[in-house]
Each structure stands twice: as C-alpha cells, then as structure tokens.
C-alpha cells in the first residue's frame, strides 16, 4: 500500500536516534494529519506531511502509519542506517493494492481475508445506504427491501450471522428481520473493513458469517478546521441527500460533527403489474406505491489525543422512516394499491426506527503494550405501523397509538476491554473481554417477539507469531457465556377468537400463550488456527481452521407470530442448542504491480445449524399457513471467491469479481437435504476503467468506467422459497475532480441498470411478492471540501 523510500541517514547520538519522515499520497502531495504510532508514542504529520520521533533507543522501529482512506502501513525500520524516510500511501481502490517496501521492511497480514474500504471506494459506490456499497465485493451481497434499505450477506450468511460494528462496537438493532434496515448514516463512514468468514474469536459469536466494521473515529489533522459537503441525487427514487460535516483540532483536542438528510420517493420498477398469489396487481406508472422514505441523522464526536492516550466520545442519532408497498401486507387488495398521485408521501403501512448511540473509545499506549476500552449505550426503537385491523372480534383499537402494529425497543449496554502486547519474541498477543446487556420491550396491537433480557460475555486471547519473515501463525481461543430470559405474553384476543371459531378451550389457551417465561444459558469454546505463508514477494497463501459457535438469538428461541406479509407463522424453539460448526478457509494471492489475483475457497460444516423449518402443522392464527418452527440440523456450506485486477496500457484497469456458493442441510433424511434460504446465486462483476489524461488543469483524476453485473439462475432453493432467474445489469460512470478556484470538487456521475432490465434479487424481501428490482438509476454525487 505504500512505497518507502529510505534515504539520507542522520546520526544524532551514539545511542539515541531521531527518526524524521514525510508522508505523501499517490500524487506526491503531502498528507497532513497522518497518524504515526510507534510503541507508546503517537504523533501526527503536520501540514507539510512531516513528522519526527526523537530519542529512539531501539535498533528496530516498528511503525504504524494510517490515514483516512488509505490502508494502514505496518513496517519495521532498522536504525541507525536510514533515519529520514518518505512514506507514500496509496488509496485502497487504486490498482496497486499492496505494500511495496524498498529497503528492509516487513508487512503484516491477517489470517482471514480482510478488505479495507477506502474513502475513494465508498465515494464511488455511495448510494445512500452503506451496505449497498459492498455489493461489488466478491462474497458480499446485500439483502434489500425497497430502494434504500439493505442488510449485508456474507457467503450466504446474514441477519444474526453477520456482525456490523461501528468503531468496534457491535450495532444492536432488530437485525434478525430481512425487512429491517441497518441504522448507520451512509455518509458517516470514513473507512470500513470487511472480514469474510467466521470472525467470532475477536468479534463475538454472531460474527460466524463475517464482520463489517465502520470507522469514523479517525483523528483529524492538527491545528486545522475542515469540513465537507456531500450532495447526492438519484433518479430511480428521486432521492435527494445532503450531508455536511465539520471537524476541528487544536493540538490535543478534536471535535467532529455531521448532519445528514435523505429524502426519497416511491421507486421506479420496470413493470406494470406484479403477479402475486395468482392475482395481477397493477403498478401505476411503474412506481411502487408507498415505498418512499426519509432519513435524518446527526452525530458528534469529541476526542483527545496525546502521546499516550487517544480517547473519544461519540454520540449519534439515526432516524429512518420508510413505507411498505401496501400490496405486500397481508392478502393482496386492489383498493390499497390504487395510485394516490403522491410519490413522496409515506402512508400506512410503514416502518420507523430511531437509533441513539453513545460510544466511548479509549486507547492507552505503553512501551510494549496498549490497552483499549470501548463502552457504549444504544437505544434502538423500531416500530411498524399499519392501520388498525384485527380478525379478533373482541379487539378494539388501542387508545394510544391505535395504528402501532409492532414496536420493539432494544436497549444495549456494552463494555469491551482489550490488551495488545507487541513484539514479544515475535509474538503479538491480544486478549480481551466483551460484555453486553440487552433489554427488549414491546408494544403494539400485534405480537411477534416477547420482551427479553440477555447478557453475554466473551473472553478471548489471540496470538500472531512470526516464525520467520515468510511464515506467520495465528492462534485464537474464545470462551462465550450468555444468558437469555424471556417474558410471558398471553393473548386474550386470540383466545376469544379461537374459542369463537370452534377451538377447544385447552387448545385456545395453549395458542394464546404466545410466549412463556424461559431462562436459558449457553456456553462454549471456539478456536482458530491460521497460517499465513509468503513463499515469495508476489505470492501469499493463507489457511485457517477453526471451530465457531453462535448463541441462538431471542427470535430463534421465542418468536411466535406472523411477520409482515409472510403468511408464515414463525415460532421460536427454546429447546435449541447453540449453533456450532467447523470451518476451513483458504486463500491464495498473487500480486505484481499491474496484476492481482485472489482465490478464496472455503468450506464450513455445521454440526448444528439453526433454521426455520416448515412443520406441516397448520397454524390457527388468521392469515397463516403451516407453522415454521426454528429447528436444528447439520449443514454444509462451501464456496469460492475469485478476484482479478489487471492494469494495462497504462491507463486501463479491469476488475473481475466472482462468487460461487453451494450449501445444504445435511439431515438424516436425504429427501430433506434442502439448500439454505437466501443463498446468493453465482455472480460476476466486471468493471473496466479508463483514466483520462490529466493535463487539463480544470479536471483532474478523471476516469470513466463501465461495469456489468450478472447472476446465474438460483434454482437451489430452500423449502417454499422461489427460484430466481439470472440477470445482467450494465452500468456506466465518470469520476472527476474539478478545481473551483483552489477548491477541488469531486464528482461521481453514474447510471446503473442502463437498459432498465427487469430482474429479481434472490435476496430481496420483495422477491417473494414478485416485485422486481429498481429500474434504471442515474445518480450524481458532489463532494465539496470546506476549509476555514
């Protein structure tokens, strides 16, 4: 990721050295505000990109250099020979995705495949929803509902099997629901990391599928006040987005603030009708009624940075309100899908979420170790609103909030502590403890999930041992202990209804007990052994073997009801054991300056996998078919990801990303060996980019691109899941930087699905309603930096 040019040794004392350096970007321009870390010391580069470290006694200096949008550089510089260095950082999305060190240096690599997403990548893929940006990565997909809500899917695992965190704090909302969004300001993402594969050792049991971390606590450059205005406009849902941030730092204290507003209309679908439950439902003017929405986010951060301490406290509030297509709620009804001649209104049914978060991150650096303490409080208040309706003759609308159908309010307290020890005879050790307390309360005239309390603790230790410069061994061990207690819920209206429709009293009573008081405890060990081998400068290989474990979520233990539009009575099962599996994950990377090939095959064997199983028993709830009960089975999941990047003829760059997944239940009965639900089809993403000649002073860094995303048919489907046909979608775009006086304004103009193809996303919540994906979308993103 960076080129180190080591030159001009300057000897200071016989025993002590000064290390001076300068950090520059890919255009040889100074990078002020880079974060340089050496042992117990912190420093940042000044306005000329220069830094210095004085009174160094060691012969080997292990430096870490990081900057927003650029990959962290870890290197060892041998003293006394070179003491004045030039460090060139390169943005992640540029072709040369590697750290080239000229001189004596070593680079580190994690055991699992990790993708760091730079500011450039996030700018180019900005769509108003963070997870939507990740779609291009091999092995990562988004599970969408409508035009602006999405959830991550990694290697076909999603919902409670993927952890999304912000500054190391796990985001806690109602992540079990495919139609629930992720409450993250899409513009408040400075950089992000995506780890594919089981990452439970360090990030908790839910990271069995993967881990996505969003960073927005990078330190601003010293003695500087700056900001940025982002404007985003999209045609497919008439989205207008505005986000502005400002950050300022005196020597040791910094302050950041951001506000974001997004407003979008119903979105365009390239079809006039959808066929649902054998009924033709009209889509007036090709706009899907009541899918408009809005989002208002604010956040602020206060931090201090000294030689030994970096500490920050951040507050954020995310508010989202989005309508549901009324044809997707219950039995299709033509009256409800009639054109209301208003594309921007949000009528019933709709969902609304407010997420408050306070995070405190503290890092203390000492000579050979560092301590980290992360504390957080989150309040996720999610509600689904639908005009009061009931099938129970005894039930009348509540006097307060009569149209509040479901409300889940989850409060989470988190406290994580970690210690890192560097360079202990070639070992880098970290150990930590993570604690989380959750309290869920409910409201609304409908019932799905009971109130619950839960507590979980995790204790882990990790070691990275460098056997020699070519061979690294990673070891990890984790112990998890968790406890969940659900509250009882008795549904008097259901009891009356069942008795009036002819049920026996005992049966009615049993049904009306929607949840019982239960108390369950889970504990387990998980481990990881990883080997990273670099036989030559160009090739690196990695292999991980491990055991993973996941605590069942309260939904899997105790849900009992019909969730929106599904016609499914979903029932938890408190007798479930924890999910357990073994995995093998491998990777081969071959990189030269103009070429990069990565191949990642993996196989997971779950000795206990939790899934929703159709039971064949008819539910007595109105509008429900058979009961789907959470059950456990054996399962196998395997796949391969391939990424190829090649630059040629100086200005051309081609990227190819592909993913293949195959999975199935391994139940005793071979006739029940169904594939797992929501499995992404084999897909390929190809992008060709051309960098224009930048002699023009007005337009700089201009490039144009054309991309093609395709997927094969997905016919391997879970029980009662629809097959989805393959598709091809083409997009084009242009990025440039315009100099407006001294101000460089970044522009990204692009058009997706330019042929307005009608296709279905197998992972979309709307898929089962036969609603196609959004049609052609043209969008413009403008970024204006502010300097004061």
């Amino acid at each position, binding site marked *: 990721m960076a080129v180190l040019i080591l030159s001009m040794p300057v000897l200071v004392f016989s025993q002590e050295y000064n290390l001076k350096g300068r950090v520059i970007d890919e255009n040889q321009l100074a990078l002020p505000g880079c974060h340089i870390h050496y042992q117990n010391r912190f420093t940042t580069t000044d306005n000329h990109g220069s830094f210095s470290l004085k009174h160094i006694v060691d012969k080997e200096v292990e430096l870490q250099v990081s900057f927003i949008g650029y990959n962290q550089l870890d290197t060892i510089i041998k003293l006394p020979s070179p003491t004045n260095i030039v460090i060139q950082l390169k943005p992640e999305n540029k072709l040369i995705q590697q750290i080239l060190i000229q001189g004596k240096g070593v680079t580190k690599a994690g055991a699992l495949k990790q993708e760091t997403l730079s500011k450039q990548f996030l700018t180019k893929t900005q769509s108003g929803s963070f997870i939507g940006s990740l779609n291009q990565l091999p092995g990562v997909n988004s599970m969408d509902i409508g035009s602006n809500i999405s959830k991550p899917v990694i290697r076909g695992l999603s919902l409670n099997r993927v952890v999304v965190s912000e500054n190391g704090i796990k985001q806690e909302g109602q992540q079990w629901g495919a139609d629930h969004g992720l409450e993250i300001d899409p513009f408040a993402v400075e950089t992000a990391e995506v780890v594919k594969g089981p990452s439970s050792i360090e990030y908790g049991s839910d990271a069995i599928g993967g881990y996505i971390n969003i960073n927005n606590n990078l330190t601003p450059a010293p003695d500087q006040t700056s900001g940025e205005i982002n404007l985003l406009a999209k045609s497919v849902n008439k989205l207008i987005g505005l986000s502005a941030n400002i950050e300022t730092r005196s020597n040791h204290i910094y302050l950041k603030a951001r506000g974001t507003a997004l407003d979008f209309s119903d979105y365009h679908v390239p079809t006039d009708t959808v066929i649902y439950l054998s009924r033709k439902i009209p889509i007036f003017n090709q706009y899907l009624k009541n899918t408009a929405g809005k989002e208002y986010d604010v956040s602020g951060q206060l931090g201090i940075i000294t030689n030994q301490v970096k500490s920050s406290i951040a507050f954020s509030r995310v508010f989202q309100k989005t309508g549901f297509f009324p044809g997707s709620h219950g039995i299709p009804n033509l009256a409800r899908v009639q054109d209301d001649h208003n594309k921007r209104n949000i009528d019933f049914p709709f969902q609304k979420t407010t997420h408050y978060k306070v995070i405190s991150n503290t890092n203390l650096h000492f000579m050979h170790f560092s301590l980290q303490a992360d504390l957080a409080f989150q309040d996720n208040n999610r509600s689904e609103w639908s*005009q009061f309706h009931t099938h129970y003759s005894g039930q009348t609308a509540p006097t307060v909030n009569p149209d509040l159908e479901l409300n889940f309010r989850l409060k989470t307290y988190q406290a994580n502590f970690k210690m890192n020890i560097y360079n202990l005879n070639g070992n880098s050790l970290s150990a930590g403890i993570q604690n989380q307390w959750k309290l869920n309360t409910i409201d609304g005239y409908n019932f799905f999930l009971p109130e619950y309390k839960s507590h979980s603790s995790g204790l882990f230790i990790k070691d990275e041992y460098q056997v020699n410069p070519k*061979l690294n061994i990673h070891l990890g061990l984790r112990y998890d202990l968790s406890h969940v207690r659900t509250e009882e819920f008795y549904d008097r209206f259901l009891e009356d209804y069942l008795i*009036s429709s002819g049920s026996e009293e005992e049966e009615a009573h049993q049904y009306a007990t929607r949840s019982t008081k239960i108390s369950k405890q889970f504990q387990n060990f998980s481990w990881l052994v990883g080997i990273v081998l670099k036989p030559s400068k160009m090739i690196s290989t990695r292999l991980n073997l491990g055991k993973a474990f996941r605590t069942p979520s309260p939904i899997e233990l105790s849900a009992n009801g019909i969730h929106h539009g599904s016609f499914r009575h979903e029932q938890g099962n408190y007798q479930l054991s924890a999910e357990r599996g073994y995995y093998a994950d491998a990777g081969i990377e071959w990189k030269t300056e103009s070429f990069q090939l990565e191949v990642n095959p993996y196989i997971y064997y779950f000795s206990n996998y939790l899934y929703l199983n159709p039971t064949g028993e008819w539910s007595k709830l109105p509008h429900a078919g058979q009961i789907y009960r959470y059950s456990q089975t054996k399962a196998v999941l395997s*796949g391969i990801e391939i990424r190829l990047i090649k630059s040629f003829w100086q200005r051309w760059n081609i990227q190819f990303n592909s993913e293949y997944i*195959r999975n199935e239940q391994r139940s005793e009965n071979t006739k029940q060996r*169904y594939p797992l639900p929501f499995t992404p089809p084999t897909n390929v993403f190809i992008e060709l980019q051309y960098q224009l000649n930048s002699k023009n002073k007005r337009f700089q860094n201009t490039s144009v691109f054309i991309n093609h995303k395709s997927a094969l048919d997905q016919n391997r489907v879970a029980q009662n899941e629809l097959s989805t046909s393959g598709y091809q979608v083409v997009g084009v775009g242009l990025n440039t930087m315009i100099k407006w006086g001294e101000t460089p304004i970044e522009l990204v103009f692009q058009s997706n699905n330019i042929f307005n193809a009608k296709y279905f996303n197998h992972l979309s919540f709307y898929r089962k309603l036969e609603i196609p994906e959004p049609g052609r979308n043209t969008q413009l993103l403008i970024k204006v930096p502010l300097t004061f």
Partner: protein
Amino acid sequence: MKTYHNTHTTLIISIFTIAILSSCNKDEVDNTQPIITIDEPMENDTLYIGSDAHFECDFSDDTELSSYKIEIHNDFDEHSHVKSISIEEDSVAFSYQNSWSFDEGLKNTHIHHHEIVIPETIGGVRTAQGNYHFGIYCTDIAGNESHQFIDVILVNGEDPHEED
C-alpha cells in the same frame, strides 16, 4: 521452509477439492408446490348466512398431497376504514378455520363438501354481512405449501341454488 510450503499447499488444494466435490452431490429434493384449483366458491361469489357453503376444489402434487386448510375471515376494515370491525349494529364477524388430511399416497384429488356452515348467530349475536376472505392452503408431504385467496360476500337470505 519447503516443507511448510508443501503441507500448506496440500491443505489448500484439499479444501478446493472438498469444496468442489461437495458441489457434485446429487440429492434431489422436492421443491414443487401442490396446485390448488378452486371450482366453488368463485371470486366474488355470494355465500348465504344460515346455509352451508358449497366447496369444490382440485388439489394435485407431483409427489404426494398431505393436507389442506380453509380459513374464512372478514375484510371489513378495508372499505369502511373503521377502527374496529363491527360493521353492522348488533352483528359479529364470522370466522372459520378447519383442516383436513388427504388419504395417503394421493397425487390428485377432487374435494367436494358442505362442511362449512355459516350460522345465523354467533354467541347469540347476528352474523355480520359483508366482504370476507376465503383462503385455501395446501401442503404436500415434503412441506411445500401453496395458498389461494378469493373474496366472497356473506349475505342474509335463502341460497337460490340449494342442492347437492
């Protein structure tokens, strides 16, 4: 160094092989849903309060039928936009659900019965007239499920086609 490398490469290759081999498994599962073809009642048909409903339907599946369920409930709030469901003074909405298992080994069958009785009163209160949903659900032996919904209207009065 060489040995690490070889072992490592061998392991990675074996993962490739397992990943590819596991994809050659040929267990066939049943993903075909049963088919429901409703003959009676038809969309927007009138059902008479105080009579039994004439139900006639064909069910078929490629492997074996398991069972079916009939559910009737009101659709009142849709048109009236009232906040509770009592549409007529002193009347109560009718609701019905029942399920039946098919005989073992059946792939196709024609069902005809009059088991759905719409009473004149429910708990001493008049049955409400109006729009109702009539839902039919069917499962096959593997758990594949299909459903069909039609709209029916419940009215007072004599069924003019009283027969069968």
